[in-house]
């Protein structure tokens, strides 16, 4: 990739790229969007790319010989190449388009899991996984009679790596792990974790949904056999995500969904699968969404992932500092050194839903609930938390407004 010019990060200029950020939520109440871990807002570049695709190109891909079909195919495949380059993947044929991270993980569980696992095999996950990296394995475990183990989370929100080393001795066939927790914000030290798993003979799968949007993911430096993420959390559209998979594994795996595009030849009673990556992309895919996803990674690359990470880190540090000063408010997860831009918190005796509702009246969008990580909340004995998640367009002024809003919550419940 070309060297990025190191200039100051002008967040106000970045904000101009996001039309929704100018709207008012209620009359006279501007939007403060602190829910990007759920889904990010979309820049003009992405909205325009998708709109232009529908206005000027729109055709089905790969089959047609006509001009529009060729252009659509190019747009779709070019997006795949740019996304592969974005994570420094060795080749774009290892990048499969799916609906989202969840579908990517389900693809691995369904296809790889059913073909290569048998009764009594162990799968190692962590206690901080999102439901999307728990439930597919639970389903597979009950189908194939597998054993599930979980790397414990310490009270400071880190993985207990001593116990992990013990768990590896049981010979898990797969390690499924999140790159960054969507509740604790913990960025797991994956380089060593994955190397250890590989040394123990496990296949490795990483849920990168919260990582790829926020810092440079370099797949060539991670011993990840599978790496999944979604467009919509990184400035792209909903309805599209990717599964990166090592070629040798993908080639050995049976197909996931059957239908058009994933075949090379079909007879009445048999079929021959297509080459990678098409083997795993049955049916007409989300073409415009792929175009939007491509525009999103272009946008992020132009801003520079290093710059984005630096901005978010500084903002997260500021948010933690300010929130820590509020009495009866507790922040989940580790210190800033090991944390991304996700700040989940609870206020003594005030339910997270009430916090979110009152903040909403101030135009502040946060998330309340268990954030699809219910076992983690159970572990910390919390029914729900509020979560402010920060992204490349958020500002210190917005954090200040959040703090004001929380004081209002506390006054109402005082």
């Amino acid at each position: 990739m070309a060297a990025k010019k190191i200039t100051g990060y002008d967040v106000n200029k970045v904000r101009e790229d996001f039309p929704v950020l100018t709207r008012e939520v209620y009359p006279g109440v501007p939007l403060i969007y602190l829910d990007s871990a759920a889904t990010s807002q979309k820049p003009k570049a992405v909205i325009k790319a998708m709109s232009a695709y529908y206005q000027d190109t729109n055709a089905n891909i790969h089959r047609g010989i006509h001009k529009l079909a060729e252009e659509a195919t190019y747009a779709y495949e070019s997006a795949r190449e740019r996304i592969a380059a974005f994570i420094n993947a060795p080749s774009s044929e290892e990048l499969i388009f799916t609906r989202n991270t969840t579908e990517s993980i389900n693809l691995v569980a369904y296809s790889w899991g059913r073909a290569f696992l048998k009764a009594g095999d162990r799968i190692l996950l962590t206690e901080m996984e999102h439901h999307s990296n728990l439930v597919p394995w639970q389903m597979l475990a009950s189908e194939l009679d597998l054993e599930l183990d979980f790397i414990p989370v310490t009270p400071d929100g880190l993985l207990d790596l001593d116990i992990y080393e013990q768990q590896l001795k049981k010979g898990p066939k797969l390690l499924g792990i999140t790159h960054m927790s969507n509740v604790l914000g913990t960025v797991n030290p994956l380089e060593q974790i994955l190397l250890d798993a590989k040394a123990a003979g496990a296949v490795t799968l990483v849920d990168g949904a919260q990582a790829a949007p926020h810092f440079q993911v370099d797949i060539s430096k991670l011993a990840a056999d599978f790496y999944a993420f979604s467009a919509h959390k990184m400035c792209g559209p909903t309805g599209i995500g990717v599964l990166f998979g090592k070629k040798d594994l993908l080639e050995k795996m049976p197909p996931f969904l059957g239908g058009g595009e994933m075949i090379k030849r079909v007879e009445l009673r048999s079929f021959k699968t297509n080459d990678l990556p098409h083997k795993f992309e049955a049916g007409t895919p989300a073409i415009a969404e792929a175009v939007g996803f491509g525009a999103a990674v272009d946008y992020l690359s132009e801003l520079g992932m290093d710059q984005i990470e630096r901005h978010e880190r500084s903002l997260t540090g500021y948010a933690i500092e300010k929130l820590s000063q509020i009495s009866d408010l507790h922040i989940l997860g580790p210190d800033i050194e090991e944390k991304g831009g996700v700040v989940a918190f609870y206020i003594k005796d005030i339910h997270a839903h009430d916090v979110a509702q009152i903040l909403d009246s101030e135009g502040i969008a946060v998330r309340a609930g268990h954030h699809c990580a219910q076992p983690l909340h159970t572990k910390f004995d919390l029914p729900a938390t509020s979560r402010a998640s920060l992204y490349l367009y958020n500002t210190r002024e917005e954090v200040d407004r959040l703090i004001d809003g929380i004081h209002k919550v506390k006054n109402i419940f005082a």
Partner: protein
Amino acid sequence: MDDFYRELIIERYKTPHFRGVLDPHDISYEDDNPACGDHIQIDVRLDENGIVTEALFSGEGCAISQASADLLLESIIGKMVDDIKKLSKEDILENLGIELGPVRLKCALLPLKVLKAGIYGIEKTERSD
């Protein structure tokens, strides 16, 4: 919005009148609201005529769900089980005195859902006996 957290709701959330568990009980049921992690259990005692004599709730949740449970239980003391079955969304909103969007409506209606499920559950048991 300030209506939303009207005094009654905050007061019932902070100092509920019908909080606790009943053991023994004639009806007991619990359920969750998966969207937000609210959890409510309701225990009810009936007299020989099927009239509610005591009712308490336990569990945790937001101010809306907790206040809704408290006000609901207050409203059913002395009522026939058959009358409780007729309670609707409107009755709950009337108890709370607020309008609610679709997400928070689930919080408000969870106690009624639990109570009705308990009632229908007990009837099923009686029938199968």
